[in-house]
């Protein structure tokens, strides 16, 4: 296994219009790792995901996937390079059924899960497959949002606050899904406020504040750093 990172971000600066929102962000993710971005609201976590993906266009710096430059690519090419995106708002389409939502994103590699495998992993999606996408509960929509990215064969998944607003039982379920994905060797960049959840799956943490990376540490150090975290996160 190579030690070169799968995803490499160096000195990423980004702007929303005139507003400078990311200041020299550095980030590394190795293949098979689950990395979590922590930070309070407005720290720039979602912005970082959007900047990596290319939804946010005004950027400077370096973004490389397996050495391939992503910064100059249009949004759809970034996805085709192998980055899967599960946005905070989940983005389930109301004018599509569950199964249509599931198969919408085109496959970007052969290593994607088949529809059968996905329905095995998410049986409730199979039951509701003909329903309108938005008729699903929040938790089911979250599963669907993750599932459709799994089908594409993306090498790395950007997951934005998957547990937000969900009941503990569903949160548990999502945690199980992420663990299962990890076992399959999936690389995950996770944004989460709920660090108890993140602790279960994350190999490493990055801490963000005001659009800057202020710290990074391995997963097992999380408990030791609780005080520092409480201060930065304001919880």
């Amino acid at each position, binding site marked *: 296994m190579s030690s070169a990172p799968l995803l490499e971000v160096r000195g990423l600066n980004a702007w929303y219009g005139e507003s400078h929102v990311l200041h020299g962000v550095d980030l590394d993710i190795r293949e098979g790792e689950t990395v979590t971005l922590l930070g309070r609201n407005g720290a720039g976590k979602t912005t970082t995901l959007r900047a990596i993906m290319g939804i946010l266009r005004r950027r400077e710096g370096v973004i490389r996937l397996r050495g391939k430059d992503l910064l100059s690519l249009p949004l759809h090419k*970034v996805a085709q390079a192998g980055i899967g*995106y599960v946005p905070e708002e989940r983005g389930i389409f109301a*004018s599509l059924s569950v199964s249509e939502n599931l198969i919408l994103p085109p496959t970007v590699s052969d290593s994607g899960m088949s529809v059968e495998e996905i329905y095995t992993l998410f049986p409730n999606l199979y039951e509701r497959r003909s329903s309108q996408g938005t008729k699903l509960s929040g938790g089911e929509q979250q599963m669907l949002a993750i599932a459709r990215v799994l089908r594409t064969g993306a090498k790395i998944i950007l997951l934005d606050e998957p547990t937000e607003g969900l009941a503990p039982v569903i949160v548990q379920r999502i945690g199980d899904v992420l663990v299962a994905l990890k076992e399959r060797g999936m690389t995950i960049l996770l944004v989460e406020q709920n660090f108890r959840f993140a602790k279960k799956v994350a190999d490493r943490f990055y801490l963000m504040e005001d659009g800057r990376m202020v710290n990074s540490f391995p997963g097992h150090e999380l408990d030791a750093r609780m005080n520092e975290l409480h201060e930065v996160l304001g919880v």
Partner: protein
Amino acid sequence: MNTIFGIPTPALYGQVLIGLINGSFYAMLSLGLAVIFGLLRVINFAHGAQYMLGAFAAYLLLNYAGVNYWLALVLAPLVVGVIAVVIERTMLSRLYGVDHLYGLLLTFGLALILEGAFRYWFGAAGQPYAAPSQLSGGVNLGFMFLPIYRGWVVIASLVICIGTWLLIEKTRLGAYLRAATENATLVQAFGVNVPLLLTLTYGLGAALAALAGVLAAPIYQVSPLMGSNLIIIVFAVVVVGGMGSILGAIVTGYVLGVLEGLTKVFYPEASSIVIFVVMAIVLLVRPAGLFGREE
């Protein structure tokens, strides 16, 4: 002779047929407008001009290249579609980031250019275009006389409308379209080339208008003014139907066409404005349109 409400039945059914035919064009054109608007958020004022271009393409193909009607049904939409693709790539796409009203103004300007140019070349009067021999003549149905070409237009338009509906509701491309109408950025973040989708959609909408133009050529005369007169009525149709649903646009088109035809029978002076009156009523009672969703 039988009469219904004092109108002789052949005359009544004749007007209903005319209404159905007008309604066919209202449906086809409002369908194209709705599809383009849904994805691009642009009101394509040039839609009427594209319809006119289709009719003129058929006319020119016949008179200068000896290309018959059936080939024109394929070639005219192709030509107009390509022109529309160029327009979208070079001009329309630059306006996606600014207020949508500018898109309307751009297509309005384009419509003026096209209508002005054709008016300059051909004059305002209409040119005749004969229906193909296979579709000429008519059948006597007993209660009315049905010209074959007009029957063909109604059937063809139904096929086109239903075909478009199927394309949008049942195919993968249609799923891309529906999803991108809701959230274009996210669809692009999944790896779909949305800019290309926008271009193709505009081209397809224009081609649809041009196809309607070819169908229209033997019925209405081929005139530079045929598009602008029609498009404004289609705007009213679209306001009545609401732009939320493809099926709604189709149904509204046919219904309003028939309503217009019936008005011509019973109250002829109002026939040219009845659709606008319906629009006014709908605006008072249900502003989002009959099938529309409140934005």
